[in-house]
């Protein structure tokens, strides 16, 4: 199935994505490509559709039109009438299993300890023996600097710590792609640092990442490619130097001015 992609390094291709909530059109024909090992930052005002776009990629929302291709497999294809249809269950499950997701509100399981949160899906979804996965999970916790919190319940952690656990939980499933939906928006400003550091570290390890964010400094320094969205459209995209240094569109300029 790999042959459908001409460039081997294109990992994700979303083509002409349309999405409506009732009468409200939130995505109006979006095209996105992400290369292997690339960090894509999606910025834009609230209600621009950037989170919806991310949620369409891992099927938390269903698209109305367009196609989604991940590593050569189609999660959704468009029929001749322009309606998107999804892959059958087993292929869909395989594709979605390649993506890890980090939410704005962390969404840790409050009734499980930090370590239990990490091993839950590997043990019950991937059927990995717990004595095999626990060392892996502990290593991930060391990586995000929270090994000593392994037996704590999430409510005992600060927001920044919870978000780092959430990142570790997603990584425990060994995803090829990490999706971040405004990972620092629910945090106090002084707590964002460690989360962003963890994300930078992942980027340095060449994890393929799509990050919906309001952190302009992060987008500028850590992203390879930046998309600016407004009103369900991509207004402008390019390398961070161009988007932040010399934006062409008035909309982009106004938005960036507001963010500073």
């Amino acid at each position, binding site marked *: 199935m790999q042959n459908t992609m001409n460039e081997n390094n294109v990992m994700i291709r979303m083509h002409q994505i349309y999405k409506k909530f009732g009468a409200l059109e939130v995505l109006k024909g979006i095209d996105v490509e992400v290369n292997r090992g690339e960090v894509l930052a999606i910025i834009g005002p609230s209600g621009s559709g950037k989170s919806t776009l991310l949620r369409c990629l891992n099927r938390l929302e269903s698209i109305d039109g367009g196609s989604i291709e991940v590593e050569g497999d189609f999660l959704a294809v468009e029929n001749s009438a322009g309606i998107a249809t999804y892959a059958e269950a087993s292929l869909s499950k395989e594709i979605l299993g390649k993506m890890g997701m980090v939410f704005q509100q962390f*969404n840790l399981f409050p009734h499980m300890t930090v370590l239990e949160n990490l091993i839950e*899906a590997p043990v019950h*979804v991937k059927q990995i023996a717990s004595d095999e996965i626990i060392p892996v999970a502990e290593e991930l916790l060391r990586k995000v600097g929270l090994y000593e919190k392994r037996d704590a319940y999430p409510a005992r952690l600060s927001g920044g710590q919870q978000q780092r656990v959430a990142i570790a939980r997603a990584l425990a*499933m060994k995803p090829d792609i990490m999706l971040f939906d405004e990972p620092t928006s629910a945090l106090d400003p002084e707590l964002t640092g460690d989360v962003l550091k963890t994300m930078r570290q992942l980027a340095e390890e060449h994890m393929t990442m799509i990050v919906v964010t309001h952190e302009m400094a992060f987008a500028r320094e850590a992203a390879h490619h930046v998309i600016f969205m407004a009103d369900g459209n991509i207004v402008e995209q390019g390398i961070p130097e161009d988007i932040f240094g010399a934006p062409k569109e008035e909309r982009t300029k106004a938005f960036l001015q507001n963010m500073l």
Partner: protein
Amino acid sequence: MEKLMGTVMLMLDGSQITLQIFFITLVMALPLGLLAALGRLSKLRPLSFFVEVYIWLMRGTPLMLQLLFVYFALPMVGIMLPDIVAALLAFTLNYAAYFAEIFRAGIQSIERGQYEAAKTLGMTYVQTMRRIIIPQMVRRVLPPISNETINLVKDTSLIYILAMNDLLRVARTIVQREFDMTPFVVAGVFYLAMTFVLTWIFKKLEAHYAKYDE
């Protein structure tokens, strides 16, 4: 004193049927209530509608009427059930309906993000409910479930009308025979003792689930 002991012994006998009805109803109605709650929340409209009608019937008519129906009306259409089974059937169906509504409210109170996190980790519906949603739901519904359970202790006295020798009927028999009100007091003490034990158990359960904050 000897007379009081005699009364207590007779009533201990009577309390056996009360306890039987109580425990068996609880053991059957809790899982049935959970299934009904899941059915009520199902996207399958016929299933959800069926459960809704069932809950409406059970909550909308007196438990006493339901007992009489199972006990006297079913035999008329040829369904003969042993006394205790008839009583258990009515109690279980009735209590499962109330439990179902409590469980439904509990399940609906769990944040959407929990389902989304489970979904993005590849968990199936059954895994999500069993491992993520229901354990959190249980913690939240303990107080109302405790309430209903204590109600059940007292509602068991309704089988009095079915001429089964439960705690209350034994008490009344002695009172009528000996013109002595003591058995009523003893019965009251029995019910209080049962609810005391239940209250203690639910306190322990709540403490157990309090090990994590939300």
